[in-house]
C-alpha cells in the first residue's frame, strides 16, 4: 500500500484581523451570513464516506490509545454525589487497573458543585478538570448568574469550563448578545480553557452550525463543542465535520487554532475511530492531540478498554473485567 504523507492544513492566505467584528450587530451578521453555505446532502455524504475507512491492527491500537487520552469522562446527573465523582476521577487516572501501560483520559467533566471533590483526586495528575457552567444545559438564566456559576467552578479548581451558548438569542438572530456572553464568560474563566457548547441539535441546520462555530471562535472560545448530551440529537459525524472545517478555516484566516469536542452519543470504539479519521483527513495531524480534540463521553471509555484488551491479548474479556464507575 502506497500512501501520501499527511498534510497539515497550513494557512496560505493572508491573515485577517477579525477582532473588530464583535463590535456591531450588523458587522457580525454580515460576516456570519457571508460564510459559504453547507450543502446538507454533500456534507452527510462526505461524513459517511470517511466512516468507511478501515482501521486495523497497528493503526487501530494507535487510535484506541489516542481516543482514551481524548476522553472527557463525564457525569452530569442530578444524582451525582461526592462518592460517585471521586470514583469516576479515580477511573480517569487509571482507566485499566490491570494494565499500567493504558494512558489516562483527557479530563473529568462534572457539575460545579462536584468540582472540589474531583479536584482532590486529580491534583497533579495531568488529567484536566472540566466543569459545565453558565446554567448548563439550557443556559436560560440571567448573565450574572451564569458568570457567577463560571467563577465558582474555576475557584473550586476547574481548569476547563464548558459553557452553553444562548440558543434563544442565536435563533432570534441576536448574534451580538451571544458573542458578548461568550466574551464575558471567557473573561470570567481567567486562565481556564473555555469550551463553547453550540448545542447543535437545537441549531438544526448545518449553516447555523457553521455560523455558531465562527461566532464562538471570534468571541475567544478555546474549543467548540457540539452538545450538552441533554437534548435528543447530540454529536453526529456531519455536524462534527462542519465544525472541523470551521476551525480549519478559522486558523487559516487568523492563525489561531481552536479545538473541537463532539459530545453525546459516542459509545463505541468504532464510532470514536471514525471521528479520528475525520480529524485526520479534514484538519490533519495538528488536531490529533488531546489538547485539540476531545470526546465528551462516559460509556465510550469501557468500550475502548475492551477493544484495547482484545488487541493485546487476542480475546474479548467480559464486561465484568472493566470497572463501572
Amino acid at each position: 500500500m502506497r500512501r501520501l504523507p499527511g498534510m497539515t492544513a497550513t494557512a496560505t492566505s493572508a491573515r485577517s484581523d477579525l477582532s473588530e467584528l464583535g463590535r456591531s450587530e450588523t458587522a457580525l451578521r454580515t460576516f456570519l451570513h457571508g460564510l459559504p453555505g453547507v450543502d446538507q446532502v454533500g456534507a452527510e455524504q462526505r461524513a459517511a464516506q470517511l466512516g468507511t475507512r478501515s482501521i486495523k491492527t497497528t493503526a487501530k491500537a494507535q487510535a484506541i490509545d489516542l481516543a482514551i487520552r481524548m476522553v472527557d469522562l463525564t457525569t452530569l446527573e442530578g444524582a451525582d454525589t461526592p462518592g460517585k465523582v471521586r470514583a469516576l476521577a479515580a477511573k480517569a487516572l487509571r482507566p485499566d487497573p490491570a494494565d499500567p501501560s493504558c494512558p489516562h483520559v483527557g479530563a473529568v467533566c462534572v457539575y460545579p458543585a462536584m468540582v472540589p471533590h474531583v479536584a482532590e483526586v486529580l491534583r497533579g495528575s495531568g488529567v484536566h478538570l472540566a466543569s459545565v457552567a453558565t446554567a448548563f444545559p439550557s443556559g436560560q438564566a440571567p448573565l450574572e448568574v451564569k458568570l457567577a456559576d463560571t467563577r465558582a467552578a474555576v475557584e473550586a479548581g476547574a481548569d476547563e469550563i464548558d459553557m452553553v451558548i444562548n440558543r434563544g438569542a442565536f435563533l432570534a438572530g441576536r448574534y451580538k448578545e451571544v458573542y458578548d456572553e461568550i466574551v464575558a464568560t471567557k473573561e470570567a474563566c481567567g486562565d481556564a480553557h473555555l469550551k463553547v457548547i453550540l448545542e447543535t441539535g437545537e441549531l438544526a441546520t448545518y449553516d447555523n452550525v457553521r455560523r455558531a462555530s465562527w461566532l464562538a471562535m471570534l468571541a475567544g472560545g478555546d474549543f467548540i463543542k457540539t452538545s450538552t448530551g441533554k437534548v435528543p440529537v447530540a454529536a453526529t459525524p456531519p455536524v462534527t465535520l462542519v465544525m472541523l472545517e470551521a476551525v480549519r478555516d478559522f486558523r487559516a484566516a487568523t492563525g489561531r487554532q481552536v479545538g473541537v469536542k463532539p459530545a453525546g452519543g459516542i459509545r463505541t470504539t468504532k464510532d470514536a475511530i471514525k471521528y479520528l479519521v475525520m480529524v485526520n483527513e479534514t484538519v490533519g495531524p495538528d488536531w490529533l492531540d488531546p489538547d485539540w480534540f476531545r470526546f465528551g463521553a462516559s460509556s465510550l471509555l469501557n468500550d475502548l478498554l475492551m477493544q484495547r484488551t482484545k488487541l493485546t491479548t487476542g480475546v474479548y474479556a467480559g464486561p465484568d473485567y472493566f470497572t463501572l464507575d
Partner: protein
Amino acid sequence: MFEYAPAPESRSVVDIKPSYGLFIDGKFVDPTDGGSFKSINPASEEVLAEVAEGGAGDVDRAVRAARAAYEKVWGPMPGRDRAKYLFRIARIIQERSRELAVLESLDNGKPIKESRDVDLPLVAAHFFYYAGWADKLEHAGFGPNPRPLGVAAQVIPWNFPLLMLAWKIAPALAAGNTVVLKPAETTPLTALLFAEICQQADLPAGVVNIVTGAGETGRALVEHPGVDKVAFTGSTEVGRAIARAVAGTRKKLTLELGGKAANIVFDDAPIDQAVEGIVNGIFFNQGHVCCAGSRLLIQESVADRVLESLKRRMAQLRVGDPLDKNTDIGAINSAAQLARIRELSEAGSAEGAERWSPPCELPERGFWFAPTIFTGVTQAHRIAREEIFGPVLSVLTFRTPAEAVEKANNTPYGLSAGIWTDKGSRILWMADRLRAGVVWANTFNKFDPTSPFGGYKESGYGREGGRHGLEGYLNV
C-alpha cells in the same frame, strides 16, 4: 501522525479459472475459429486468466442461439415470468457481490471501495428495477402492447465492466429481447462470472450469450445480419464506425460515447461540498468515466480559494493497491490508456498550462498516474477539448453565468454537466441552457436506475436507465 495500516480485501473469495471459453447457448464452449488472449491485473501486470477470442463463426453461433431463444422461449414468455428470472439474477448478484467486487477490482484496477459501494449496488439495483418493468410494459408510455426487437448486440467498455453489462442486459431482457454481449478485452472476467450466474439462475439457454474478444469480434457482432438492435458504450471514434456499419440496415442503434463535462462552481457555492464534488467528478474510477467532470469552470472571484481547498483535499487521496479498503485511486486500466493520459498531459504542459499533483508515491509495477490538475487552461488547449479519460482535471475560469454556459457548451460533447451554487433559480436557469444529457446540481456522478442517462451531440444518442431506457429495446 495517524498512519492507516494496510487493510486488504481478501482475494480468496473469488475463484478465477485459468481459462475461460465463450458463453453460448447456456454453455461455456471453445471458440471454433478464434484464438485466445490474456486478461491481466493492471495493478500488478500479473496474468489473471486466459480468455477465448471469438471469431466471426463464434459470433454467428451466438446470434443463432439468441435468435432461437428469442423465438422459442424468451419472446413468447409472459412478462411476469421474465421478471422472475431477472429478480433471481438480481438476488444472486447481491448474494455474490463481494466475489464480484473483488473480481472487478482485480481485472479493472478500480478501488475495492468503489466496486463494493458503487458498482455492485448499482448493478443489482438495475436488475431489480428492470425486473419490475417486465410485466408492466404496456404502462411504460409506448403504446398498449409494445413488442421487443429480437436479438440485441451489445458492446461495452472497460471502465465499469459489470455495471455497463447491467445497463445493457437488464432492460433488453425485461423488454423481451435476447442478447449477445461483448465485454471489453481488458476486462472480460466479471461478464464471464455473470454468465455463471445466469446458469445458477436457470435462465433459459441462449437468452444471454457472452462472446469475448477485441475490436474484430465486436465488429463481427455489430455487422451480423441476424442482429435487430445494436447498443454500444465506448469511444466516439468507434461509435462513428458502428453508426456507419449500421446505417441503411433495419438495426436500431443506441450509442453512449465520450464526454468532456463542465463542472461549474459559482462564487456562492458551498465550497467544501463543491470541492468534494470536483474530486468525485474527476478522480472517481481514476477518471475513467465518460461523464467525468473533466473541465472545472470556477467563477474567477473564488478561483484561488477553491483551488487552495482542492489541492489540500487532493493531498489526502490515497493512491495504490485497488484491493486495499482505504485506497481512493486505483490503477489505470491498461498500458495503452496510460500512454494516452501521459501524451495528453504532456501536451497540456507543452501548450503552457500549469501542472500540479500532490506528493504521491506510485507503485513500481502496474499502470499508475497521480491525480493531476492543470490550471491556466484555455478553451484552445487540447486538454480542454479532448477526452483524457484519466485522473486529470483542466481548470478554467469564468466571470458571469452567461460565460459559464458558453464555455460549458463549447465542446463537441454533451454528456453531463455540474452546477454548484446556493441559488436555486440559477440552477434552473443554467440547466435550461446547458446542452448535456445529465445536469447535476450540487452533486456529481450520481447514478440511479430510475434516471435516464445519455448524451447530446458527439456523446451519442438514446437513453439508458429509467422508463426511457426501455425505448431502445422496444419496437416503438
